[in-house]
Structure formats: C-alpha cells, structure tokens
C-alpha cells in the first residue's frame, strides 16, 4: 500500500466512525422517544386504519416485538411504560393494565430463550399468539372489572384487532431489523 493511500484511508476512518456514531445516536434518540412515536402511531391507526370498527393495537405489537428481541427485564419495563402511557381511561386501576402487558412481554422474552429461534416462522407464530392472548386478556380483565361487558362481541372484536396486528407483523419485523443493524 502506497503512503498516499494509507494516509487517505486514515483520513477516511474517523469520518466513517463518525457516521456510525451519528446513526447510533439517532437510533438512541428514536428508542428514547419511541413511546411518543408509538402513541402518535396508535392514534393515527385508530382513526385511519379502522376496518369494520377494529384497528390494530400498536402498543401490543410494539411490546411483542421488543419482547422478541430484548431480555425479559427490558421487555417488561418497556411494556409497562407503554401500559402506563396507554391506560388513560379510569375503567381499571391505574397500573393494572401495565402489569398485564409487562407480564405477557416477559413471558414472550423467556419463551424466545427457550425456543430454537432459527426455526422458520417461529417468531411470527409466537408473536401472533402473543397478540391474540394480549387482546383476549385485556377483554377478560375488563370483564372482571366491568360486569356489564358483553363478552362474546368484545372477544370477537379483540380477535379481529389481533389479526389486524398480525397482518402488520412484517412491517414491525422490518423496522426491528433496520434499527437492530445500527
């Protein structure tokens, strides 16, 4: 390698490192502000993507994806944060829905450790089951607190919402892969 080429590569190296650092910082900022972005996305999905009265639950989807890619402690903390942010109606005691979501996220994270993750479709299958259980458990929790809730239509609506979330899983996986490369 000639001296000039070595000098050029030395000059380039810090620039590349700086760009990587910028990217990592950007991902860090996105991760820190992700609850707000998710809240905006949730409200937008609720109004614009509703089909047949049902729309995907963005918080559940995000909690599931984070649980599949992160350790149980972090996944539970993130899910609890989303649960506290989303639990604004006074139907349930404040924090109960966050506990439910954190418990389910931790279960998915532990399941990922127990399963062979290189199985084709394992992640999609587990997350689809998570979305169904997440919506159904929410309905059952509400039914326990609000005895007047008609269980059959509420469960049907929950299944529809979960299936809608399953349809959005490829987008979530792609987003996770993009952010995970950083």
């Amino acid at each position: 390698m000639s001296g000039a080429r070595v000098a050029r590569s030395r000059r380039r190296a810090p620039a590349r490192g700086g760009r990587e650092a910028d990217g990592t910082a950007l991902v860090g900022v996105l991760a820190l502000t992700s609850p707000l972005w998710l809240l905006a996305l949730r409200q937008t999905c609720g109004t614009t993507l509703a089909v047949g009265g049902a729309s995907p639950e963005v918080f559940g989807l995000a909690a599931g994806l984070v649980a599949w890619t992160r350790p149980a402690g972090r996944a539970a903390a993130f899910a609890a944060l989303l649960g506290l942010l989303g639990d604004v109606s006074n139907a349930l005691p404040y924090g109960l829905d966050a506990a439910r979501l954190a418990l389910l996220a931790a279960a998915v994270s532990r399941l990922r450790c127990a399963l062979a993750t290189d199985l084709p479709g394992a992640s999609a299958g587990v997350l689809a089951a998570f979305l169904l259980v997440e919506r159904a458990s929410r309905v059952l929790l509400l039914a326990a607190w609000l005895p007047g809730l008609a269980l059959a239509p509420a469960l049907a609506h929950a299944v529809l919402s979960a299936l809608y979330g399953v349809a959005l899983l490829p987008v979530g996986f792609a987003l996770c892969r993009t952010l995970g490369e950083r």
Partner: protein
Amino acid sequence: MAASTMRRRRPQRRRHWWVVAGCLALAFAPLPGKRRARALALELHRKVARAVPLAGGSAAVGAPTERERLLAAEVVRLKRALLEANSSSELVRGRAPVELIPAEVLPLAGGADALHRVALARGRRDGVEVGLPVIAGDSLVGRVAEVAVGTCEVVLATDPSFRVRASIARAEGEVEGLLRGDGSETLAFEPVLLKPDAPLPAPRVGEAVTASRASRLCGIPAVLGVVERVERPPGLGLVQGRVRPLRALLDLERVVVVKPKDTR
C-alpha cells in the same frame, strides 16, 4: 466460577418480576399521585392528537394547493359544528339554565379496545366537571368520567359502564326503563315496572328512546337511539330492547358538554 456466574445472573432473571410487582403496587396501593399521573397521560394523548393531523387533531400542514382544499374542508366542518351547536341550543331552550361547552373529540384507543371512550379537548379550566352529560346535536352520546386541566375523558353510551334512566314516549303513557351499554354497537333498554299490578311493558321496534325526565345524569330530553330489535335474553325473564344510537359514537368529531349553571 459457574456458580458465581449463576448467582450474578439470577437478579437479572427476576428483574421483570420487579416491574410487574411495581405496576401491581401502583394499581392497588392508595398512592396520592395516581390520578395526577393518569391525568398527565391523558394530557399527553391530547397533545399528541393535536400535533398529528391524521390522529384527529386540527393542525393542517401542506402545500398551498392542499391548504385551500383543507380550508374548504374546515369551513364545511365548522358549518356542521355550528348546526350541531344550534340543535343542541334548541334542545336546551326553555329548560333550566345551562351552559353549553363545545368540544373537539380526540380518539383514545380507536377501534382496538372494548372500552368505548374518547377524550375531549376541554377540561377543568373550561368548566368541565365529572358526571356532566355530553350531547352531539340533539342526541345524548355519553358523560364525563374524568377531568384533567385541559382535557377530559368521556364514557360513550355504548361503554359497559354507562347507565342512564330512559323512557319511550307513548300515547298511553311513557315506558320508563334503564338503558345501558355493554361494549357492543347497540345499547340494552330494560323496562321497569312503575305500578306493581300493571303488566310489564315491552319496547317495540322503531320506537325512539330518550333520556328520562327523572334522570339525574341528563335533565334534558335528549334522544339516545331507536329500538332496533326486541329480545328475551336467556336466564332473564324480562323483555329487552336493543337500541341503536342515532350517531356512530366512535366517529364523533365535535360534541357539546352540558353544564347546569347553578353548579358553578
């Protein structure tokens, strides 16, 4: 070495249990800041909804040509809001003095939840109080359940926790009953017996259900909906009417909070 690694890892494994336990403690411990924390989350929802145009807010950003289109749409929307406010005024005219507080509806969870609730961009500073009725046009759509500084939460009529005394007007006398939401698209109207020796009246398909004059929630005769079908639920001896609300409650854009003037 391996044992010490295991010992070191154990607390990490249990970290999620601490998170769950913390949330449960928050839910069931009598902490003073809980209502405030929930109110802060509600305010955050309002601010995010306002900032994102598609999420139900009124911020309009776009190119000049788009802007004209949006302004035209805004004019149509405001004209409709004015019509609704006028019909609300007509509804309360000649009754006890009330104050009408128009409000913009902000979605909470949209169609992803079994709860039928929305937030309004009006709160304590605008005079909104817990328990006040909320109407859209001449139809009762819900009641205020929680109030923060600049926003409030409204339980819609189809929510499982909504109950109101309602009546059906007939030539032979009013049929009084209880109207309640159950999380589905329709409400259940259960007639009550006012005279012990009289037969229990049954609702008929097509009859309009209005808020009862005896209702403590809503003292104005706002319409709640129309009886869509009559059924006898299994295990219940009573005949029940399924009432379809006049408005699609989850698609509301503007509503009016009715506040009696003497409560201030």
